[in-house]
């Protein structure tokens, strides 16, 4: 599964993207965020406040309880500030 990071999540993690292979008990987007946070370091810093992290599965906005179910690309980013 490919994970992408944008804006200050990207800066804190120190990566624009990475391939991950989470264990079987990581079912939802929130599970994945917690699993990434548990890695410590930049990941812990990036996910320290889950309330301000948004996510997309295969380029569509999803809620934290969305099941990962076969998604190929997961993205994490702060609230958008375009326009």
């Amino acid at each position, binding site marked *: 599964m490919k994970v992408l990071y*944008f*804006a200050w999540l990207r800066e804190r993690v120190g990566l624009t993207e990475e391939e991950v292979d989470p264990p079987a008990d990581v079912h939802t987007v929130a599970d994945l965020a917690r699993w990434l946070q548990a890695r410590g370091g930049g990941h812990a810093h990036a996910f320290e406040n889950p309330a301000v992290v948004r996510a997309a599965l295969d380029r569509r906005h999803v809620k934290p309880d969305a099941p990962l179910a076969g998604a190929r690309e997961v993205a994490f980013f702060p609230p958008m500030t*375009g*326009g």
Partner: protein
Amino acid sequence: MADGPPASDAFSVRVQADAFDATREAATLAHGRTDVGAVVTFTGLCRADETADGPLTALHLEHYPGMAEAEMGRILDEARARWPLQGARIVHRHGRIVPGEGIVLVVTASPHRGAAFAAAEFLMDWLKTSAPFWKKEERPGAPDDGAWVEAKATDDDAAERWGAGAA
């Protein structure tokens, strides 16, 4: 419809690093057509605001390639489902943008002025809250030379007034 552009060209979204020509984008939407009654254009510009950390020298816009275009397209489809539009265009820039330059352009064309206005506002409100773009300030006097712009609650409110389920 007679001599207007084909429907596929009348609706489009674009992400680009280059500056856009708001005026030409709007002109092409109604050019040669005689069925359009109202054209509304909105241009969002980079402002040279000044804080205690000194002046803003630029904005850096990061985006999610692929999803940005897809999400803009979904927003456009939602607007078309709500209002009788004859054309609509969204152009959003990424990269470094200096004060005075345009960041985003929305153009809508409709037989009726109310629809053209409402659709343009809707597009802007939803772009602000759902299009995957992030602004970072370039402010040489600030810590780390500038911070990420924080999302405004007022933008969420503006998007919410159109009702749930959009985009």
